[in-house]
């Protein structure tokens, strides 16, 4: 069915107007990060292009250090989640044992508990373990993930049971079957989940705020908060340069994986 010309024009106009509105805050931050402070304060249009804000953001703050910390933390959480979720999903799909259904409901139940309801004891646990200002404290609490387990369970279910039976006859154990057959078949879902895990870890705010007290392992989100509160609204160019550095990795990841992420999340949400 062809779209009528008139409706096409209207749709394009709506799309352009909406895109403009949605993208303005981001666009403005990017433009401001290249502007001189004088242009920003006088509210004029950019009169010169300068990289000065970026230079100062990296010189006056350990921004690069924060970025590296964020990468390490996000990648660690991503890998931890993929391993734990795929192991658990394997058990729920391919292993039959007493209490499996009960454990499955227990996993569902974990989704009902907001992180904030357990944050106080968690903080004390981390403190007592000596994990404050350590990568362990920032990563390990997030390894277990019910949502990821469900997503992978849905995917593993599509692997024919006959394949497992055939591999059993061939004398293939569960660990080997998991590594050699299940993980390669579920590659797409694992990537989707990985991207999702990285995005959410990179953007985490409340927990890194509590679990870090110095620059050692502080992530870039808290670094940005620091930058913003120390600059006290004066140097908007530097603040925006910091914010642009924060969003670049996730935006790139999102642009590359948008389609996969959309399909993956919709599947996980609705099945």
């Amino acid at each position: 069915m062809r779209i009528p010309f008139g409706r096409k024009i209207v749709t394009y106009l709506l799309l352009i107007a909406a895109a403009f509105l949605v993208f303005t805050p981001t666009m403005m931050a990017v433009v401001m990060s290249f502007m001189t402070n004088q242009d920003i304060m006088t509210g004029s249009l950019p009169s010169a292009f300068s990289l000065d804000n970026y230079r100062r953001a990296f010189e006056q703050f350990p921004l690069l250090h924060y970025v590296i910390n964020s990468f390490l933390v996000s990648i660690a959480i991503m890998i931890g989640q993929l391993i734990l979720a795929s192991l658990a999903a394997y058990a729920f799909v391919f292993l039959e044992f007493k209490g499996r259904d009960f454990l499955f409901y227990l996993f569902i139940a974990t989704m009902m508990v907001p992180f904030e309801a357990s944050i106080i004891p968690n903080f004390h646990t981390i403190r007592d373990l000596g994990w404050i200002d350590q990568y362990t404290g920032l990563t390990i609490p997030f390894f277990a993930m019910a949502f990821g387990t469900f997503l992978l369970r849905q995917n593993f279910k599509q692997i024919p049971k006959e394949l497992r039976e055939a591999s059993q006859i061939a004398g293939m154990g569960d660990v080997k079957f998991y590594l050699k057959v299940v993980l390669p078949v579920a590659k797409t879902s694992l990537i989707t989940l990985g991207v999702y895990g990285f995005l959410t870890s990179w953007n985490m705010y409340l927990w890194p705020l509590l679990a870090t007290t110095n620059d050692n392992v502080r992530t870039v989100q808290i670094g940005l908060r620091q930058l913003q509160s120390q600059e006290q609204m004066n140097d908007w160019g530097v603040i925006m340069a910091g914010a642009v550095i924060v969003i670049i990795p996730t935006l790139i990841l999102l642009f590359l994986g948008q389609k996969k992420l959309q399909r993956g999340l919709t599947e996980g949400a609705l099945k």
Partner: protein
Amino acid sequence: MTNMTAVITQEDQALFVRTKRKQRYKQFIKGILFLLPSIALFSVFLFYPLLRTIYLSFFLTDASGATTVFVGWDNFVTLFQSTIFQQSIKSTFLFVLYTVPLTIVISLFLAIIANEKLKGIGFFRTIFSSTMGISVAAASVFWLYLFHPTIGFLNIIMDTFGLEKVGWLTDPSWALIAVAVTTIWMNIGFTFLILLGGLQSIDKYLYESADVDGAGYFYKLRRITIPMLSPTLFFVVTVTIINAFQTFGQVDILTQGGPQNATNLMVYSIYREAFTNYQFGSASAQAIILFIIILLMTIIQFKLGERKVHYQ
């Protein structure tokens, strides 16, 4: 002859039962081993802390978090009598009311116009989903500038149109709205992406047969799109509500709970009570109340949703 068969069968059966039991035991151990990492972490960082929060909510604590005096329901009673906490609950519910419907309506509109098969539509989809890649901290910083009283973009626009400048983040009657606007903008990316996925999974055949019957654009929207999208909408509404109750970062950067506690949303209130006032007992009581509210919301959503949602 018949006797012998019986004996063998009996022995066989015993062996069979033993092997089967052994195998079942082995299967159980194997299952547990696969699940052990997840179960261990859930126990340490989810189930134990949840129970511990309930326990703490009945005590007073010292600054290190150790319990000192058992006070029973006192923490809860004090909370419900405290005007600051009442304000916090009220602000939180208002905030949910401001953010959830608008997030859904805007995202649905964007998803519908981005679902047309037009040239360059991929570009628009990318733009609309872009806010999903922007962290709370970055988004809050963007809007902190937009809301800036003198050099902020919004007040410059107000000025250009000859309107009075607004103290977006300093006026108690505007601050919550400002935080809500920031939140809606942040939510759009994710909600849009999920709704677009839902739209794309609707059977094209439905539209084709409606076209044959000569149905108009809005008729199709009302009679096909919205009903077929209802499971996705239902999911998105639930997630958005739960997220709204858990708002923290925007408040921390934009307003720190002020002015006059107007934006002191529940999670921020818990954070302040626990980690600046060191009142872990009272903070735990608030956390339990938040937990119950979210739990109730989820249950109500599911009960209402089941009835109204149209599943394929």
